[in-house]
């Protein structure tokens, strides 16, 4: 009896490792092609052409990180991804991807297929940044150009993340794009990337915004306008407000104001004639960080004048951006419709179907408030003696 028990126990001990070690698809890290970034272009005959940057880590004493670029084509995104195996020999691994660059042509045709795959596949994570290439090709952004880091895609990620103190491009992760696509009354925006020549070198530059309607690209707005857009969207985390000398008699000197905090509230109201008006109230806290003259803009009187003039500038800029977007694109990138839907669902239900037309003629009332908090290290402007 006892021996039978022992035999059974031994058998059990042998069986347990077989059951518990359920590594059907065990993969070593050096057998994986870890994808850092990917550029997606239109290939021939409506195919997708994907260019992936693969991180290669070589271990040992002087471990190095390098990157390698592979281009594959396929009828769908996933087809192209799997075709990559025949070029790299490794199965691409998508959990550590940082950026996706979509070519302009593809964006104009529609990006829903790209979004779907990245959201649907279990290996990809929907939290990486999406970019639209301003130039024709997305591939060259990854291929050409200098790198600061070992891996180009990591560079791009830093560029996007540090926009918080520049505010000239939005930050859009894939899932945000997907949410905006699904949401009513809001159009998606994506940062734009281009190749830029400086000091005789070509570097990628992230600046400006690509405007989408549904999943199709409509056009771009530049960096400065992007900042105004971020003001309306309440997405400003930092950046500068510039007061420029305009040559008038009692003009201010050029001043740089650094934004520390900004809050924007958008409230829809219904006017007496039944039309909809958006009230945009923005409150910004700034500091004087640069003064291009010796006029005193720091004392009470000068400060007030500076605040007023900054408020005025911001107001005109916001208004002109809204006008531009209304007339040129007609895509509700500010999410006015979504706001209306949240606050006044009944009104929204009435205008939902013709929101595009209504948005184009929507009235806005902009109120800006700029508060100067300090003047950095110096209490007074520089004095210019003779």
């Amino acid at each position, binding site marked *: 009896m006892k021996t039978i028990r022992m035999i059974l126990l031994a058998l059990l001990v042998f069986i347990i490792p077989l*059951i518990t070690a359920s590594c*059907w698809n065990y993969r070593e890290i050096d057998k994986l092609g870890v994808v850092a970034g990917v550029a997606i272009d239109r290939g021939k005959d409506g195919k997708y052409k994907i260019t992936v940057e693969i991180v290669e880590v070589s271990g040992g004493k002087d471990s190095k990180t390098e990157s390698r670029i592979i281009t594959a084509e396929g009828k769908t995104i996933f087809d192209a991804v799997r075709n990559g195996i025949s070029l790299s020999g490794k199965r691409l691994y998508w959990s550590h991807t940082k950026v996706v660059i979509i070519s302009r042509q593809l964006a104009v045709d529609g990006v829903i297929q790209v979004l779907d795959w990245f959201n649907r596949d279990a290996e990809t994570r929907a939290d990486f940044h999406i970019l639209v290439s301003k130039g024709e090709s997305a591939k060259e952004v990854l291929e050409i150009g200098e790198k600061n880091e070992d891996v180009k895609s990591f560079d791009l990620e830093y560029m996007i993340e540090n926009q918080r103190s520049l505010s000239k491009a939005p930050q859009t992760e894939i899932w945000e794009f997907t949410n905006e696509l699904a949401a009513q009354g809001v159009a998606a925006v994506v940062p734009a990337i281009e190749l830029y020549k400086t000091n005789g070198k070509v570097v990628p530059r992230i600046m400006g915004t690509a405007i989408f309607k549904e999943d199709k690209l409509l056009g771009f707005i530049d960096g400065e306008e992007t900042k105004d857009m971020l003001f309306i969207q309440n997405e400003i985390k930092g950046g500068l407000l510039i007061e420029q000398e305009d040559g008038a008699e009692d003009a201010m000197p050029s001043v740089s104001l650094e934004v520390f905090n900004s809050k924007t509230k958008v409230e829809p109201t219904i006017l007496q004639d039944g039309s909809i008006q958006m009230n945009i109230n923005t409150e910004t806290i700034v500091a004087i960080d640069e003064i291009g003259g010796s006029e005193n803009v720091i004392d009470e009187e000068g400060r007030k004048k500076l605040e007023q003039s900054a408020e005025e500038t911001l107001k005109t800029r916001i208004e002109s951006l809204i006008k531009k977007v209304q007339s040129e694109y007609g895509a509700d990138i500010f999410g006015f419709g979504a706001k209306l839907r949240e606050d006044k669902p009944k009104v929204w239900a009435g205008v939902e179907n013709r929101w595009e037309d209504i948005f184009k003629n929507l009235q806005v009332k902009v109120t800006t408030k700029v508060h100067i908090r300090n003047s950095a290290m110096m209490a007074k402007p520089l004095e210019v003696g003779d």
Partner: protein
Amino acid sequence: MRKEQITDKEAICTLIIFIMGSTLILGVGGEAKNDAWIAGILGIVMAIPIILVYSRILSLFPGKDLYEILSITLGKILGKVIAVLYIWYAFHLGALVIRNFGEFVNIVAMPETPIFVPMICLGLVGIIAVRSGVEVIGRLSAYMLPAILFIIAVVQILVIPRFDPSHIKPILANGLGPVLKGGFSLFSFPFAETVLFIGVFFSLKTKKSSYKVYFFATIFAGAIIVFITLRNIAVLGGLLGNLHFPSHVAVSRISIGEFLQRIEVAVAIVFVFGVFIKSSVCLFVACKGIGRLFNLNDYRTIVIQTGLLMIYFSYTVYDSAMEMRYWAFKVYAYYAFPFQVIIPILLLVAAEIKVRKRKISIAAGRE
């Protein structure tokens, strides 16, 4: 045979985990979109009358399990017929729960591993637990619930940076219809599934405990479900209804600094444990019923057979994940309605009559 007994606390913990079980990962109230949390509250409100019925049945027959109650009140033959129905329900529900787990692991973590492997792993552990008896399941739950709550609370806090409160507005924009529908589907999955606990709570100590256990556990688990639904809405917005496993995706959005991210698989532990308890309870009730049906001395002799059958059945019950979703959200509420509402109410009526009669006859006997 020694009588099995569990304390009220253990019973509450088991019931809470049972209710949260698969709901945590499958998500609820998809029809109601951003009002799903209201559907959750509605589900609790709808569930309260029916758990009163369950507790009343239990308190009329202290120490008796579902099948004994059935044969006492409905007589031998009808009692056995209804018993077969409940055995089927418990068996089927257990299989569905195991399949949910299998699909989850298969889609999220191990797409190339055959779905049978995670299911048989879970099923074997469930068999061991059921063979050990209801006391062991109760004690396990009492140990694990604090850990589960801790994980849920931590995740809830970590995900706050990803909140977008505007996703919750507008409240009730689509009217009450979808919310009522969502509330009903929440009522049947998971709240009224607790009907199976009539087959477990024979082991409670006192007559009154069943009320306390049912109430406390339903409210508590309901509150957690509402909170988690709110979180999922605030994080996922319009994407919510399109996902198989919304909680998993919501948690995957957590990214604190560069280092605290990708914790969703760790969070799946909560789900694994919930599913384990739920399928074990189902298996227990099914085995108990089969034991009574064939007048076995001890239900333990048939646990392994039933358990293995349950695993095989769960393997064949759905053809695909799409079918699972269709069944869980479209069909299940109607399929389960007789088991959850109609039979218990009829049973209660019969039981009340029986008890009154007995009292009268006892009183008559005294005279």
